[in-house]
């Protein structure tokens, strides 16, 4: 899993049928020091994360399909946790 910070969301009305009703978040990657790192990912929100929150992103397809309980969904990245204390 990777650490990220929610930077925004994607609004999309035309999409693959399996994406209907799924919330898409723009997640900027965060390093071990808690600072923004290079890169981002668009992830499906499985838990209800909001803007500015530090989140755990699962970045693997088979696990993503299990979490979303959809065998054919073309998604690799899913927000699976909200981090309370990102840096100790």
């Amino acid at each position, binding site marked *: 899993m990777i650490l990220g910070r929610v*930077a*925004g*969301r*994607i*609004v*999309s*009305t*035309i*999409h*693959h049928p399996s*994406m209907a009703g799924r919330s*898409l978040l*723009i997640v*900027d990657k965060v390093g071990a020091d808690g600072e923004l790192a290079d890169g*981002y*990912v*668009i*992830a499906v929100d499985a838990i*209800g*994360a*909001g*803007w*500015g*929150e530090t989140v755990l992103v699962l970045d693997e*397809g088979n696990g*993503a399909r299990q979490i979303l309980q959809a065998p*054919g*969904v*073309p*998604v*690799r*990245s899913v927000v699976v946790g909200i981090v309370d204390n990102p840096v100790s």
Partner: protein
Amino acid sequence: MFLGRVIGTLVATTACEGMAGVPLLWVQPLGSDGAAKGQPFVCADGTRMAGPGETIYWEASREAALTLEPSFVPVDHAVVGIVDDRQLDAVPAPRRRPR
């Protein structure tokens, strides 16, 4: 998934089984700020509705092939949806259920 912009279309009359009728698009990958980043590549269009100039989001690797039917096709980049809007402004986090 990542952001991209459709910069052109492609036609492949002779293609592998399962890819007949699948639209192929040139896609320029974008950073989260919407600026071009990296080299363009060819995407299969899982929405079948994307066209040049549109901002899309795409998926790579095995998950890309899942946008097509049948999904056992030699595709490694695919358009999953068309972006209407990127909301990057400071929206307060929604209140969650108490634990």
